[in-house]
């Protein structure tokens, strides 16, 4: 079980909270009956690449960072059932350089709360599946204004999306016969986004649906009493186009193919730390977009 949990935690699913681009990191792992699991993660998303379809224009006058502090509390009911509640705190910062001057816009607020239900099924001693469904509630702020408190910031700088969204996830994993500590896993996640009517600037705004595929491999190395878990994953993300007042935004959505190495450490059976670094390998986006240059994710898992 330690092995299973370590791998899941090291490859925590990027998913489901806050405003677009997706910000939170949700750890999904089998939870034992009557067990509490606290997951605290910091997701630093550096968004500096101005991409025209699949070409990085190299322009550097515009950049944005999104730092998400995500607190996730999970509880296991037994028979593989578990529930998680996720509360994100999102900080956006946008820098625009014009004629040598840098103009910075910031916003920080509690993002959208999500509730996640999961069911784990052990196929045999080496394989298991986990199914999950979540609802993301429009609890985060969508009305944050600029520093002069005059105008509502664009949706990309808001902490919440203003919509109730639904997420379905399935994940399977198998340990390798030639080395039991080595695991491969595959997950698919689909997020159905609904209409937001809470952005005052846009009467109706809908972020495009999203699909994630994460394929990963991880192994365990033991040094003394500490278990190290190096991992490597290929993340494929698809996002549909945003719709603003029936206008389909041609500069939104597309395909992202990212690679994400990670390293986890089990300091004690109940305490796991991990860090992940995600970089794009290939992107095929719609139109012209500012998108992620790299991400760094740090995770602390505590079992109670």
């Amino acid at each position: 079980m330690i092995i299973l949990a370590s791998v899941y935690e090291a490859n925590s699913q990027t998913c489901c909270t806050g405003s677009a681009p997706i910000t939170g990191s949700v750890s999904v792992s089998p939870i034992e009956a009557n067990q509490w699991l606290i997951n605290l993660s910091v997701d630093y998303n550096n968004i500096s690449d101005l991409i025209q379809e699949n070409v990085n224009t190299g322009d550097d006058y515009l950049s944005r960072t999104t730092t998400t502090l995500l607190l996730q509390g999970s509880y296991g009911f037994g028979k593989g059932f578990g529930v998680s509640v996720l509360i994100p705190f999102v900080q956006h910062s946008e820098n625009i350089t014009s004629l040598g001057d840098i103009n910075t816009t910031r916003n920080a607020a509690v993002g959208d709360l999500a509730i996640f239900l999961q069911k784990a099924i052990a196929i045999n001693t080496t394989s298991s599946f986990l199914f999950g469904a979540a609802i993301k509630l429009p609890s985060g702020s969508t009305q944050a204004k600029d520093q002069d408190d005059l105008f509502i910031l664009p949706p990309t700088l808001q902490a919440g999306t203003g919509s109730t969204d639904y997420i379905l996830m399935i994940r399977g994993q198998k340990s390798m016969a030639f080395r039991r500590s080595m695991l491969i896993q595959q997950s698919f996640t689909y997020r159905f986004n609904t209409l937001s009517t809470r952005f005052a600037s846009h009467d109706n705004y809908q972020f495009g649906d999203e699909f994630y595929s994460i394929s990963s491999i991880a192994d365990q190395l033991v040094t003394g009493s500490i278990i190290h878990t190096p991992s490597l994953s290929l993340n494929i993300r698809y996002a549909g186009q945003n719709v603003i007042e029936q206008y389909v935004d041609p500069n939104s959505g597309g395909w992202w193919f990212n690679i994400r190495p990670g390293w986890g450490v089990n300091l004690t059976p109940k305490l796991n730390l991990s860090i992940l670094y995600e970089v794009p390998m290939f992107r095929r986006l719609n139109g012209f977009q500012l998108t992620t240059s790299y991400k760094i994710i740090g995770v602390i898992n505590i079992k109670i």
Partner: protein
Amino acid sequence: MQAKNRIQYLLLISVIIIGSCSKINQPEPSGNLLPPQTSLTGVIQDDFEGQSIVIYANSRYQTMVAFSRIAESGKTLDFHLSPNNFPFIFEDNEGTQWDIFGLAISGPGTGDKLIPVSYQVGFWFSFSSFFPKVTMYGEALNERLDTRFNSSEWLINPDDIKQGASRDGIPSINNPEFDLVVDLFDGSDGPYEDNELMVVIQEEASVKVFPHAILNWHEIVNDTINGVNVALSYCPLTGTSSIWNSQIGSQTLDFGVSGLLYNNNLILYDRNTESLWSQIINQSINGSLKNNIPKRENSVEMNWRGVKQLHKPTLLLSKNTGFSRRYDLYPYGDYRANSNLLFSITYTDDRLHPKERVLAVMIGDKAKVYQFEDFTN
């Protein structure tokens, strides 16, 4: 065996999901998407708000201009369509031939000039939202619906201003470069398609040309025309352009894109005082320069086919802007052809398609709109 079947089922589901998500939309090529079905050319003489005006339209070149009938010489003239080819547009009652820039080129009045009235060409919804119950040509004058707003700080209601992007998120061009293009003629190849729209400015013996294809991505060009510092602005969402003399009092202003919109129309800011300026209202709406009115410089909208007919040395705004952009791609998808707006407007008028390209003469707080279909002579 049971586990193997489950894995196969999962793989099948994933293939279906990936397949259903695989459509990637491409931006449409730039160009005017709403030309009239037939070529319409004509001249209208009209009276509006006590002014006698003359308007010329030519749908083949996608151009419309409006002048006072009182020339610079003080003569009040009668105009009809010039028998000569474009860029000649008027012949007056004295036999003088006038070109699209309002210059008397031949005949007894040679050297005289026409004075442009305050007008803009753009999408119908732009003018019908700024001027509720706007009068259309051929209709009786409407009573203007008074939506004026004025506070100590604002000339328009700030609650109706929307933030589409951050300040300078759309970068203005501040040191424009131009390519000299000569020997243009109808049918010749060029860097643009014939139906692509341009903002054209007469500069001594040549013309300066600013393609919408570049302006779509930058919206403002700070430049010098005939020795005068100017700010050329173009709003892709309302389809309107304007050229302002940058000199306000003792200050030469440098303009940028504020990211704010009013009725979807560009609000500029000046980097000197951070005052805000409405492009269509043609006035500072907030800040220390509130109420200041910039002097409009004369410009003409036409397509690349029209530019080629001018037969003048052409200084074409270079794609070497300092920014890496695909200027051959229109960044707003099918916006020019559909009926959707990105942001709500203060007044909706359904008499025309929202994106119908029209000319609006704006005098004081009133406006009158002319369509290509009005020009049938």
